[in-house]
C-alpha cells in the first residue's frame, strides 16, 4: 500500500512531510476524506510558511485516516502514513495532528519518535480541524533531538490562531537538573511483561516517584465524548456547497446536503459525528457532555507536577485501540506536551507539564546513556 504521496518534486534528505490535513497552497488537502476529494488548499498553513522561511524543504503529503478519526472500538488500527514515511526514510520528519494517539503509538512501535507539543504553542492556522480543544500539530521524527530542533522552527505565537500562548519563540534544551519520573503503578500493571520491565529499567535511571492517575479509567470515555462533540461541530461545514465533494444527483437543497455528506464521509467519521450530535442533544447534554467537561478538569487537576517532572507510561496496554486511547488521552485532555519513542517492549510515552518540553528532551537523552 502506498502510505505517502509523492506528487511533489523529488525531495532531499532533510525534507519534512505533511499529513494531508495540513494545507499547502494549491496542493490537494483531503485529510483522508472523500468529502474533500479534489480540494486544493487556498493558502499555506502557518507551519508550512515557517518551514519554508527557514529553508526547510517539504517532502510531500502523507496518508491519514479520515480527518484522523479513530473511535470505533473494535476496528484494526489504521497505518499512519506519517510514521511510515519517516520510518522508511522517505522524509526526515512529518508533521501531523494526532488527537487519538495513532501516530504517537505507531512511532514508538516502528523505531521512530513523536513529539506532541503543549497545546497552544504551535499554530493550527491552515490545519483542517478535527477537535479544536485538542488539535495540536506535532512531529514524527527520527530522534527527539532532531524533532525538537524542528519544533523550535514552527512553534511560537501566530495571530491567526486564537488559542495560543503569547511567546513568539520556544527554546528546547537539556536541563541541568535531575529529572524525577512519575510511574503510575496501576497503569504500568496493565502493560505486557516486556513493557513493564522496560518502564522499570527506564525509571531506574531517574529519581522515581509515584504518579497516581485516579481518573485513568475515565480517560477514553471523556476523550470520546468531548472529541465527538467537537468533531460533529467541525464537520458540519462540509455541506457540498462551499468546497469539497457534492453529490452528482440531488433535487432539493436538503437532498444536496444529505447525499453529499452521506457519500462523502466514511462510516467511522459518521459514527463520530452521530455520537457528537447525540451527546450535545438536549436529552444527553448534562449527563454526557457537561459531565465529561467536569471530569476533564478533575483529570487535569489531579496531576502533581510538583512531585515529578514527567509521567512515564507504556506506549500500549493491549491490542485494542480503545484500550490504548486511555493512554493517549491525557496529553490532549490536559493540553500537555508528550513524547513517545522506542524503549523495549511497546515503547514509552512521557508526559510533562505545560511548556516543559525540555524535561521530555532531557529524560529521553538521559535514558540513552
Amino acid at each position: 500500500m502506498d502510505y505517502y504521496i509523492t506528487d511533489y518534486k523529488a525531495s532531499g534528505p532533510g525534507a519534512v512531510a505533511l499529513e494531508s490535513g495540513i494545507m499547502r497552497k494549491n496542493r490537494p488537502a483531503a485529510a483522508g476524506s472523500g468529502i474533500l476529494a479534489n480540494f486544493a488548499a487556498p493558502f499555506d498553513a502557518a507551519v508550512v510558511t515557517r518551514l519554508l522561511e527557514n529553508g526547510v524543504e517539504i517532502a510531500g503529503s502523507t496518508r491519514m485516516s479520515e480527518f484522523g478519526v479513530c473511535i470505533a472500538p473494535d476496528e484494526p488500527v489504521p497505518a499512519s502514513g506519517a510514521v511510515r514515511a519517516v520510518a522508511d526514510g522517505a522524509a526526515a520528519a512529518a508533521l501531523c495532528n494526532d488527537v487519538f494517539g495513532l501516530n504517537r503509538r505507531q512511532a514508538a512501535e516502528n523505531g521512530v519518535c513523536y513529539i506532541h507539543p503543549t497545546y497552544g504553542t504551535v499554530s493550527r492556522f491552515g490545519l483542517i480541524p478535527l477537535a479544536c480543544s485538542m488539535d495540536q500539530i506535532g512531529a514524527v521524527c527520527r530522534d527527539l533531538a532532531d524533532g525538537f530542533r524542528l519544533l523550535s522552527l514552527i512553534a511560537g505565537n501566530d495571530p491567526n490562531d486564537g488559542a495560543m500562548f503569547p511567546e513568539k519563540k520556544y527554546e528546547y534544551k537539556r536541563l541541568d537538573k535531575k529529572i524525577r519520573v512519575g510511574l503510575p503503578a496501576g497503569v504500568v500493571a496493565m502493560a505486557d511483561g516486556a513493557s513493564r520491565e522496560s518502564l522499570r529499567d527506564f525509571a531506574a535511571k531517574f529519581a522515581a516517584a509515584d504518579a497516581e492517575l485516579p481518573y485513568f479509567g475515565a480517560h477514553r470515555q471523556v476523550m470520546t465524548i468531548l472529541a465527538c462533540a467537537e468533531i460533529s461541530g467541525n464537520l458540519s461545514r462540509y455541506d457540498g456547497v462551499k468546497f469539497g465533494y457534492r453529490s452528482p444527483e440531488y433535487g432539493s437543497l436538503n437532498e444536496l446536503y444529505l447525499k453529499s455528506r452521506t457519500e462523502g464521509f466514511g462510516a467511522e467519521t459518521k459514527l463520530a459525528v452521530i455520537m457528537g450530535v447525540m451527546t450535545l442533544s438536549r436529552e444527553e447534554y448534562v449527563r454526557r457532555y457537561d459531565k465529561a467537561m467536569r471530569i476533564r478538569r478533575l483529570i487535569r487537576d489531579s496531576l502533581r507536577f510538583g512531585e515529578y517532572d514527567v509521567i512515564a507510561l507504556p506506549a500500549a496496554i493491549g491490542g485494542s485501540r480503545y484500550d490504548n486511547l486511555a493512554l493517549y488521552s491525557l496529553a490532549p485532555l490536559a493540553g500537555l506536551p508528550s513524547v513517545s519513542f522506542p524503549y523495549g517492549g511497546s515503547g514509552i510515552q512521557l508526559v510533562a507539564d505545560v511548556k516543559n518540553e525540555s524535561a521530555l528532551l532531557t529524560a529521553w537523552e538521559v535514558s540513552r546513556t
Partner: protein
Amino acid sequence: MQDLRVYEALSKFDMPETERRWVNARADMLIESFAALDGIDASGAEPLVTVLDIQNVLREDEVVRVVTREELLEAAPEQYDGYFQVPWTLE
C-alpha cells in the same frame, strides 16, 4: 441496540442499512463504556472548556487578506456569477 435515526437525521446523513447497522453497533459499544463515568462525582468541578489558562485580549481591528473571493469560489463545487450555486430554495 440504540435507535440513532434522529441523530443521524440531525447530522444530515441518510445511511444505507448496512452502514447504519455498523455505526449503531459501535455506538452501542461506546455508550456501554460510558457507564464507567457514572460512579464519578464531578458536580463540584467547573467544566473545563479550554485547557489554556490565558485571557482573551482584544486588539485593534486590522484589515488583512489571506484569500480572495475568487480563490474561495474556485473551491466551490458549483458557482454562478460570483456566488456559490445551490438548488432553488423558494417555490
